[in-house]
């Protein structure tokens, strides 16, 4: 199975966030997010490590609070990493780390005009997702719940509405706590998930990464297979005809 977002090609519906990783060598992913920060002499090169592992870096704009800050970080990422795509993040404040929809739409317009392929991190709001798509986003990345919270998908109906309204890929980002959350995202129709904390802060990150990979595969298969409808009452799966007389 492969998924294409702009010119970004994913072998699996699991994108890895590298934040907080103790080691990356033994974790398999085809795409991983990176942040842009000041160069420190002597620090080991994440760029070279990802290149050696064959992992495509997806630069983010973490740290941006305005569209203009996000545009500068995106330009730095494109120059440093040589890729046209960017995971756009603009947060309203550092306490909630929730996306600022107004600045996100502005930044998406500006970056799209500069030739970027924008994957826009957003709230789980179908209207904002529609505005971001209209502004040129090549993917929308609604949060499951606040970054690092591990609370899972708090608003499944909104996620379904985003999936139904979007004509670009939907990647559930932030708040995934367990493989069951990742599976549910795919079952609800998301194309991929981005997971960082749930893997990196797990007791055994490599094992959790494997569990997440299996979960997204299960969710994807279940989506294609078609879930049965929910109904309020029991529905017998054994025939009611031909039951022998049991009142003896």
């Amino acid at each position, binding site marked *: 199975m492969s998924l294409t977002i702009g010119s970004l090609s994913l072998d699996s519906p699991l994108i890895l966030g590298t934040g907080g990783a103790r080691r990356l060598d033994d974790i398999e992913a085809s795409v991983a997010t*990176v942040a842009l920060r000041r160069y420190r002499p002597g620090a080991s090169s994440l760029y070279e490590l990802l290149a050696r592992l064959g992992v495509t870096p997806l630069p983010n704009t973490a740290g941006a609070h305005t569209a203009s800050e996000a545009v500068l970080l995106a330009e730095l990422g494109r*120059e440093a990493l040589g890729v046209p795509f960017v995971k756009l993040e603009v947060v309203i404040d550092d306490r909630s780390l929730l996306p600022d929809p107004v600045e996100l739409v502005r930044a998406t317009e500006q970056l799209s005009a500069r030739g970027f392929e924008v994957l826009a991190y957003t709230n789980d709001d179908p209207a904002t997702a529609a505005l971001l798509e209209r502004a040129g986003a090549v993917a929308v990345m609604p949060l499951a719940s606040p970054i690092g919270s591990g609370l899972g998908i708090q608003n499944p109906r909104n996620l379904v509405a985003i999936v139904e309204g979007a004509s670009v890929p939907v990647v559930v980002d932030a708040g995934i706590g367990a493989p069951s959350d990742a599976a549910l995202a795919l079952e609800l129709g998301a194309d991929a998930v981005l997971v960082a904390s749930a893997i990196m802060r797990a007791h055994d990150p490599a094992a959790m990464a494997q569990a997440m990979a299996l979960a997204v595969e299960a969710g994807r298969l279940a989506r294609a297979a078609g879930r049965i409808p929910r109904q309020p009452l029991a529905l017998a799966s054994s025939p009611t005809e031909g039951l022998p007389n049991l009142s003896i």
Partner: protein
Amino acid sequence: MSRVTLNGEPREVHAADLAALASELALPERGVAIARNGEVVPRSRWHETPLHDGDAIELVTAVQGGAL
């Protein structure tokens, strides 16, 4: 010699342009970007971008991050 601000710290550098600055600082061949006074300068233009007193230079690279 120019007095510039390098990643937020005042510093005197010998380099006359960004390419020379990259050599002076022994920057890696790839994986880094330079912004001069708030504008990203592509590596292909480093040699033709002079350094002046008072320039604010940001040297940036990829670090671990994302969905923390």
